[in-house]
């Protein structure tokens, strides 16, 4: 099967009608949004949730009157009230405030290392796929080894040797993250390499680097975008897990994983300490997953007909 049949629109009618007007163009973001809105309402809801989280993170100081690290021992472990919507923690700090600030860490760690590993993985995957031969074998062996390592274990090794902290969390996640992306992009590149329009470009005399940039990359892009949105939640989870284990972000900085970790001790008499960040993690992870699914359906021409 050729990958480039995406132009062959409205395949519902199976070759009978090829409607030139039915623009399934994935080009314009507006049309992607429109198609998401008609067929994937959950994805739109997810987008709204994500946007709300981002806004919350950005405008945290405006949204809350409290400081995330302002200790108020007279008001320890207060249950949710109008004053403190999600209650306070063992230091009397407002949980909602800490969650808002914590979302900065979680979102940044969710997005930035994922972006880096997607960029890195895409480059490596395209080179491996297009050049093939020994280059390909070498790169893919390394990727296999990285992938065969349990992520958490590898992350823990890195954190133990290099110490905790945001930068090292970043590093670990990129170190592991690129391999999965590289695999998918390589497979996609192999497929596109055999496509007629890439052959057509070669016959015209277009050089390799340009073929990769002008023909392979743009046609991989939908896959890459989907991969990106689907990788973000796992990054958020990894960060949470690492922080939970005490190897990620260090107090008094706030991060959701850290909050769950400290809240765990008070699970019986102050459950809100654990539940609030847990719910936040769940919401954002689900939102990114649903958005990714929706985007995949809209952007992947092969799934369109089904």
């Amino acid at each position, binding site marked *: 099967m050729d990958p480039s049949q995406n132009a062959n629109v*409205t395949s*519902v*009618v*199976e*070759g*009978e*009608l*090829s*409607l*030139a*007007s*039915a623009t399934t163009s994935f080009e314009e973001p507006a049309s992607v949004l429109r198609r998401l809105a*008609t067929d994937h309402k959950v994805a739109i809801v997810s987008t709204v949730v994500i946007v709300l989280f981002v806004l919350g993170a950005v405008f945290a100081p405006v949204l809350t009157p409290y400081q995330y690290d302002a200790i108020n021992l007279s008001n320890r472990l207060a249950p949710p009230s109008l004053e403190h919507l999600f209650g306070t923690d063992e230091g009397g700090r407002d949980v909602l405030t800490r969650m808002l600030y914590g979302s900065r860490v979680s979102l940044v760690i969710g997005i930035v290392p994922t972006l880096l590993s997607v960029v890195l993985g895409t480059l490596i995957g395209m080179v491996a796929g297009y050049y093939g031969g020994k280059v390909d074998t070498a790169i893919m062996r390394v990727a296999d080894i990285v992938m065969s390592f349990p992520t958490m274990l590898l992350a823990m090794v890195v954190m133990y040797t290099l110490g905790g902290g945001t930068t090292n969390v970043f590093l670990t996640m990129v170190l592991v993250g690129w391999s999965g992306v590289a695999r998918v992009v390589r497979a996609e590149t192999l497929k596109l390499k055999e496509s007629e329009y890439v052959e057509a470009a070669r016959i015209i005399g277009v050089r390799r680097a340009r073929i990769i940039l002008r023909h392979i990359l743009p046609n991989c892009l939908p896959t890459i975008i989907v991969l990106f949105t689907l990788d973000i939640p796992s990054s958020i989870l990894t960060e949470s897990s690492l922080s939970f284990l005490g190897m990620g972000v260090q107090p008094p900085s706030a991060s959701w994983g850290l909050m769950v970790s400290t809240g765990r001790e008070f699970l019986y008499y102050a459950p809100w300490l654990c539940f609030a960040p847990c719910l936040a993690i769940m919401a954002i992870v689900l939102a990114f997953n649903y958005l990714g699914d929706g985007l995949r359906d809209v952007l992947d021409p092969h799934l369109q007909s089904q």
Partner: protein
Amino acid sequence: MTHSTLEVSHLYTSFFTEHGEVRAVQDVSLAVGRGQVVGIVGESGCGKSMVARSVMGLVRKPGKIVSGRILLKGRELTSLSEQELCTIRGRDISMVFQEPMTSLNPTMRVGRQVQEVVTIHEDVPKQEARRRALEALGAVGIPEVEARYDAYPHELSGGLRQRVMIAMAMVMRPRLLIADEPTTALDATVETQIIALIKQLAETGTSVLIISHNLGVIAQLADYVYVMYAGRVVERASVLDLFDHPLHPYTRGLLGAVSSLRGQSKTLQTIPGVVPNLAHLPAGCSFAPRCDRCVARCASEQPELVTVGSGHEVRCHLAKGADAV
């Protein structure tokens, strides 16, 4: 033609897409008599395959039969449930598709696939089903049937696969065989074999509805021909009438295009322009924008199908007889 095997009258099939209603089939009426081979010819997008799918009850969402009647031996098909249609498909009507590669299950031995058709429709012992499958495979000219019975589809050539498809279609001895571009994916030398086989089937009393874009196939096989353009039948005639006295400008254009390939002239005859978009059909005759004989009336008024000779109908304002209005 009192006892037609298949009678379709005023069939409308549409697709309801986000870009509005796409009228794939409009006001199509046709009849296939016993042992008759009826051809539908037209270019891609003219709705010819949709007619076949409508008859089979295989129109997929967002497509739907909007109105019209489909009678198989007098039995109305459009009102049947999916379950009832399943008992009819494969037993009373069968269909052969263009792609013999994708229409067979790659993980199942071909003999079993034919046998399965029998066991689905009739409660017969396995031995009997196998015997009938073997017989059907033999009847479509597959050599060394016993050995091929256990072959997987990929082990067979394209021609043999299409024969297996025809065997599957014919094993229940249906009254009507619908063949949708049955030879388009095949090589020329194989095409002639398959055409000879379909001819043979018709001689034994099976009615055949053959759909093709290839005028050669139609000329070789069909007794009656319907020419479709943009969802409508534009001309209907016996095969000799149609090829000898084409009346519709589109039919003439098609025949001219094909026969000019065989002529001496350096420049080939063409039909200018492109097929109209079915979502935005012109108000009048859908062929008007490409027609060299178009008059004012053609652009505004949809012509009716009128009879101009014995069994010869045409949908054109300029046809003789239509001018009397």
